[in-house]
């Protein structure tokens, strides 16, 4: 059976009366899908693995640093990891931020649409009483929720691990000594500043998931793009060329630790993330809205 995009039953509300525009069940359709998707995510082993990594990862790194005297010297704050605990979350962000965070969100967002293709379940869920828009919004929101929730979790565990390692003042990137209270703020603000590009990567993975109908491609393309950005970054691009890349906003936090602090790269990064997010979401919706469900693909 083939359900063309415009012919599938929009509201097959079972014996619940007419579904008028004022019906609260209809308006909350997105929320229903969102809740259902979150429940499905909670059951996935990779979601649990990522959550576990966010929970214990920073503490494992602190423990690892404690038993050796070497320092990760080739990254900002690297030489200070044994002097102040505040250096540790920043080394993690500088070292892993550009790689791990996009991959972490892509693992979920790159699969959330194409898994329905994999299991052949589009026909089943689209014949329910949820519209295509509600399904799209609900799934999209679930992926964004996962990305934001893991980031918040990671900020908390990173900061706690840092505080546990030591609250001595840390040397900022301007050579100034940063007191414990100010350093706490800067750690949190720096980590918060990478949430916009993470959400940009989420939208990108959603798009590749919708367009490819294949989870390996949905997850793989954002991961490969992350690597490609790293290579392109090494080229002597003009300043605006660097700003176009979705990887650049991940480094904007450096400015917060300077003296005087500067936020130019962060503001440009917000714009870059917003443009990527908007373009990818719009493209994903256009592809999803027009696709034929149930036919030979």
């Amino acid at each position: 059976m083939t359900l063309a995009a415009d012919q599938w039953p929009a509201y097959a509300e079972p014996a619940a009366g007419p579904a008028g525009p004022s019906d609260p069940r209809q308006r909350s359709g997105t929320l229903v899908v969102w809740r259902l998707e979150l429940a499905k995510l909670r059951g996935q082993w990779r979601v649990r693995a990522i959550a576990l990594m966010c929970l214990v990862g920073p503490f494992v790194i602190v423990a690892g640093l404690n038993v050796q005297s070497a320092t990760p010297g080739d990254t900002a704050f690297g030489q200070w990891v044994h002097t102040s605990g505040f250096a540790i979350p920043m080394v993690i962000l500088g070292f892993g931020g550009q790689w791990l965070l996009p991959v972490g969100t892509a693992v979920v967002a790159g699969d959330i649409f194409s898994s329905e293709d994999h299991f052949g379940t589009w026909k089943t869920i689209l014949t329910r009483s949820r519209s295509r828009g509600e399904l799209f919004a609900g799934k999209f929101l679930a992926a964004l929720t996962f990305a934001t929730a893991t980031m918040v979790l990671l900020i908390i565990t990173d900061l706690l691990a840092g505080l546990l390692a030591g609250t001595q003042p840390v040397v900022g990137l301007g050579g100034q000594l940063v007191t414990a209270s100010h350093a706490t703020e800067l750690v949190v603000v720096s980590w918060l500043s990478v949430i916009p590009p993470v959400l940009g990567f989420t939208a990108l993975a959603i798009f590749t998931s919708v367009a490819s109908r294949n989870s390996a491609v949905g997850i793989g393309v954002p991961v490969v793009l992350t690597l490609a950005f790293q290579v392109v970054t090494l080229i002597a691009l003009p300043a605006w060329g660097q700003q176009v890349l979705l990887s650049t906003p991940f480094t904007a936090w450096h400015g917060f630790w300077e003296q005087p602090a500067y936020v130019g790269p962060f503001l440009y990064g917000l714009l870059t993330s917003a443009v990527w997010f908007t373009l990818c979401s719009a493209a994903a919706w256009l592809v999803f809205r027009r696709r034929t469900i149930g036919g030979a693909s």
Partner: protein
Amino acid sequence: MSRRLAAGAATAVITLLTLTASGCGSTGLTAPRLQTSLSSTFANLYVLQQTEQGNPKPSAASLKSQASCQKGGTPDIPQDGSGAWLCQITYLVAGPGYPVIAKYNVDVQTDGCYAADGDGPASVNGSPTIIGPHYAQLINPLSLIDGCFDTT
């Protein structure tokens, strides 16, 4: 089909960016920006170094530190962009008549962050550690300087 589409789109984006790379526009990684950042960061870290060694604390401003940087060590190549720069920082420790020159090999990254590796004099930035009070071994803050400047 869609797989080829995605791969094609990615290739197109990268090719476009690479093509524009060689073209117009500054990288924002200029000598004045690097010099301003390095000289003030050096001054702050010099104060830290003196304090940690138990010496009288100078003020960062009194050092009147000034950096002079050249990419690749020669003015022949364009003085703009990431890569290896050579910097000399002149600062006044014991009055205007006694300038000291500290040298650094600076690796500038495309995001405006740099790692400056001390290249003499040995007593200032040569050793990775310094001796603090009670013979404690401390990191020499002037041996490796991490800093960043705004490229926007």
